[in-house]
């Protein structure tokens, strides 16, 4: 595939992701942070996010499974997930976390469980989409092209 074509695909795909709310301006900020000194910055950060989120989601599942649910712990985890998802621009995950937090405040166990499912869902979605996007990015770089700037979305 030609570099231009790849770049176009990348942009188109990114546009869709932004439009559908999977990503927000923060992600563009990350893109803009990437430079020669840190050419893999975005990949690095996104990987950190995946790693961290997976752990958090596992912890959340475990905590909610307990006999006596520790809502404070849930709140702490969710807060963290909210922070990291917002930092990389995973907007829908962040929003799901906010909803989750509300149920947690109310100590509504059932609500929390539903929210957890929702958060997991959104997480998996954004994960696959980011992976696809970054794959496109890598292809462009491999072909010697420059990654299109997503500044219009920031």
């Amino acid at each position, binding site marked *: 595939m030609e570099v231009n074509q790849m770049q176009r695909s990348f942009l188109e795909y990114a546009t869709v992701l932004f439009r559908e709310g999977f990503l927000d301006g923060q992600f563009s900020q990350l893109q803009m942070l990437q*430079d020669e000194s840190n050419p893999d910055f975005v990949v690095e950060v996104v990987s*950190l996010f995946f790693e961290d989120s997976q752990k958090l989601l596992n912890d959340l599942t475990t905590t909610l499974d307990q006999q006596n649910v520790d809502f404070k712990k849930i709140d702490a985890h969710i807060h963290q997930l909210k922070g990291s998802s*917002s930092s*990389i621009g995973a907007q829908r995950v962040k929003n799901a976390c906010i909803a989750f937090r509300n149920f947690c405040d109310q100590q509504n166990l059932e609500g929390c469980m539903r929210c957890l499912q929702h958060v997991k869902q959104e997480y998996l979605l954004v994960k696959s989409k980011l992976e696809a996007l970054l794959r496109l990015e890598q292809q462009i770089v491999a072909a010697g092209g420059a990654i299109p700037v997503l500044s219009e979305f920031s």
Partner: protein
Amino acid sequence: MNLGMNFTSSSSSWKSNDKASDQFPAGLRVLVVDDDPTCLRILEKMLRNCLYEVTKCNRAEIALNLLRDNKNGYDVVLSDVHMPDMDGFKLLELVGLEMDLPVLMMSADDSMDVVLKGVTHGACDYLIKPVRMEALKNIWQHVVRKKKHEWKEKDFEQSGSFEEGEKCQKPLEDVDYSSSANEGNWRGSKKRKDEEDESEDRDDTSQLKKPRVVWSVELHQQFVNAVNQLGIDKAVPKKILELMNVPGLTRENVASHLQKFRLYLRRLSGASPHQNALNNSFMGPSDPTFLNGLDFQALATSGQIPPQSLATLQAATLGRSTSKSTIPVALVDQRNIFSFENPQQRNNNSKQVNLLHGIPTNMDSKQLANLQQSAYMSRSNSVPSHMVQPQPRTQLLNDIAGTRVSRNGIDFSRSNSEISVSKNVVPNYDVYNEINQNRNQDWTLQNVGSTYGSSLHVGPDVLRPVLVEPGFTSKGQSSLPVKSLGIDQQFNSSLADNSLRVKAEMGFENGLYSGHFGQDDLMSAILKQQEGMGPVGNEFGFDGYHLDNLPV
């Protein structure tokens, strides 16, 4: 960066790293603490892009160790609020205490109470996640500000260029000062004095900025005491200054304050023939001059009473009040209302006492209402509901309103909607009607009670919202909580009790005011207020006001 090279040359103790200081703020040594690896990495990158020297750690303990091992190794600390091993605020405190470095807090949590907590714990700033580059680019100013402040405290001779570079003042800069300074009412003046010192260092008297003195309640009380001691006729700024013995206060400060005070007194005395008139009129239904020493004229002429006057009045914010005339007028109104209420009630006299008749009150009906509210609130004893009589009030209010009040100005409601006229209350009485209408609105008692005999430092902004808060409901006995807005309240004990016991039963038909307010209570409250200070200008604080003097 506007600092240029001058900055570095004057900051000999700025950094150990001379090379970095040449390109300030490049090379700023930042320690970032966050348990979230994603955020940490992003922050690190962003800070690096700002050309800062970044050290990251994901544990507060590690951060503290790093800081302790290398006391001068860092310029600023960036810390997350929620961390597993240590609360971010704790770290903030420790860093502030041990290393006295500027600390910025970060969190995805943007709820006001958390941000407030950060501020009160001494954070230089609070960044909401996700943190953007722009926010990080400017963190160097906190470092500069703190250094400058430290130098000032050591009477460091500043070079002009250094000062110039610092003019960028952020809204949160107040937290930069030591917490003790923050709490004092002198904060503003201290800051001003710092600036003044700065100016003086420039050896240019023409550039000397006059420090703007914040006439806190205490300060005003001292002032009033001095004046009373000397006798209002003999009170000259020089002598007052001597008596007050407040360091840093200049004769000019006292002089201008005295001028305002005199104006206030004049207004008060102009309204009613003499102080005792209030007593008389209070009892007499038709005596419009019951308010002792309350010079409505004076009050009215004292100046415009902006809508905020209510707040001013309520807060008895001496120093912070911007509209001096507000308080006096408000007070007057309250008293008027008071007196009218009682006599009316007692005598079943529907005669309308126009206390404020003819008085070009500048007070907004809002203020008036507020005053009334305050007046009522301050009475703790059961106030017969008859005390609240629409008619006289109406008259009063009308007059008051007539002069300048704009209904639009009344701000009783939560939103700044006008108080609509309630049919229950005498239609003429704009304010009251409006109050009635808004009876279901929330009034905070605290302001009310504190009007008299209290020295609330509530600033206008603070008061306003307070007033509209759910304090009174006509529904039932809801005692208005006397919250402390962090203000010094020098309540007369009785008043304090009164205000605490205020129930939202009495008052206007709508029960805006607690029925517990007794006429006597209100009057005594007013009198007490008046007593201490004589006709005290509201702006100067209600401390001296002893309502006992008011004739009942």
